[in-house]
């Protein structure tokens, strides 16, 4: 039987935080008020002495837990392979940096850490004994355009199975199950004078999985406004989507890696007043997940493409999850 806990990443409040409307404490407070029972923290975003964590900050985290009832459950690590100006970091160097992340996650009391696929499968394999020492489960993020069983992710699956380590696994971002265009980018394009018929044409081409060059050609022939480019890049990039007929297969992929999943990122870009995400099929995803043996957090993750802040949408997202999961 599943045991799903609902959390939120403080990244939801990126807009408020960058505008100095919320400080770290306010982010924690808002996550708690939205209904999260734990939070994820992105180190590069909110840890003042990144990549290390100071006693002062730990004290604050502890005090906020006493005040608002929630503490960090997931550590969002970044894998900056392009740190140096003249070359990529080697596997040795990437591994060493990730061990610093483990120390920080461990100090914060996070049992799960999100890493990114810039950390190669070979370096990930070598991380296992360290992750075990610190008792932090490290999940490679499965993020759109990757899917749970895409070739790139299978490299990590092989390592997880080969090592048999209980500390190596995945964090799946629900954005990879998107079946419709990203609403903020769509609305943004309309606002810049792009005609809806041209956006629909672009979406149709994407559904048919035409190469981007062909879609660009069709749009040019149809006389589409150049401002459609951003939406188009999104459709073929980090917010790409597939046709609804592909969803059962994608969810089957999720089922295959589920025994190795430590956390889910409940990605959302928009939530209507009746709490529906227009591009990510939450009903299908959560209904399926509820019937599995998944035990862990779904961490709500708002991408503030609308630059309106995460206050309202995060509340709606958690309300939607509770409704579907019957929590």
């Amino acid at each position, binding site marked *: 039987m599943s045991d799903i806990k609902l959390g939120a990443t403080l990244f939801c409040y990126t807009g408020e935080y960058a505008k100095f409307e919320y400080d770290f404490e306010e982010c924690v407070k808002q996550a708690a008020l939205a209904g999260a029972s734990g939070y994820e923290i992105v180190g590069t975003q909110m840890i003042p002495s990144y990549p290390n964590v100071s006693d002062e900050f730990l004290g604050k985290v502890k005090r906020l837990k006493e005040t608002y009832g929630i503490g960090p459950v997931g550590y969002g690590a970044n894998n900056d*392979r392009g740190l140096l100006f003249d070359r990529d970091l080697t596997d040795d160097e990437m591994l060493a940096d990730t061990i610093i992340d483990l120390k920080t996650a461990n100090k914060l009391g996070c049992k799960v850490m999100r890493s990114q696929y810039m950390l190669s499968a070979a370096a990930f394999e070598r991380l296992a004994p360290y992750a075990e020492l610190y008792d932090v489960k490290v999940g490679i993020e499965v993020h759109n355009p990757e899917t749970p069983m895409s070739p790139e992710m299978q490299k990590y699956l092989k390592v997880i199975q080969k090592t048999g380590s209980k500390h190596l696994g995945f964090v799946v971002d629900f954005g990879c199950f998107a079946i419709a265009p990203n609403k903020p980018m769509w609305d943004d394009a309309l606002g810049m004078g792009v005609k809806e018929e041209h956006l629909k044409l672009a979406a149709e081409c994407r559904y048919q999985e035409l190469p981007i060059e062909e879609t660009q050609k069709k749009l040019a022939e149809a006389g589409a406004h150049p401002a459609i480019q951003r939406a188009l890049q999104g459709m073929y990039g980090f917010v790409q989507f597939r046709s609804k007929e592909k969803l059962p297969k994608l969810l089957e992929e999720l089922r295959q890696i589920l025994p190795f999943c430590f956390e889910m990122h409940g990605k959302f870009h928009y939530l209507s007043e009746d709490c529906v995400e227009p591009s990510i099929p939450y009903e299908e995803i959560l209904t399926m997940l509820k019937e599995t043996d998944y035990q862990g957090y779904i961490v709500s993750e708002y991408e503030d493409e609308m630059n309106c802040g995460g206050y309202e949408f995060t509340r709606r997202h958690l309300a939607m999850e509770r409704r579907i999961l019957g929590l």
Partner: protein
Amino acid sequence: MGFAMRMNLNGEIIKKQSFRPMYINGKKQGFSFLVQLGYYRGHYLSTIEQLEVTVDGETIPQEAVTFELNGKEMPLYRLKFATTEFWSQVVPANIHVIKPGGLSVGSHKIQLKLMIRIPYMAIGPDHSYMPLDSGDTVEIEVTE
């Protein structure tokens, strides 16, 4: 220039209210201003690929510009080696510009070119990363 990401979350990268004259031996010989990184997270200074200040169309020589963060003032050529200096997106950096005579009374157009390599967003093999444009241009009024 090709595609570069923009993420001006705060709405203000160069803090317009932060301009201060720089005095050398009691005389106005330049100015300084604060800059907030235009991204959702912080970056190591070694990911800065270009930093250039232009005043009314005139580019300030690189050696006359310094970057101050967390109490450490650095010449620009060192930034690319600064792999342990982390620039938080909520801690503005102070840019100091030596300009003999300082900014004259009147309005000035200050442009900051600031290009960063997003170090976890590879867009190809062999050290090819998504460029971030965190530059900004402001018009300021110098009254005295």
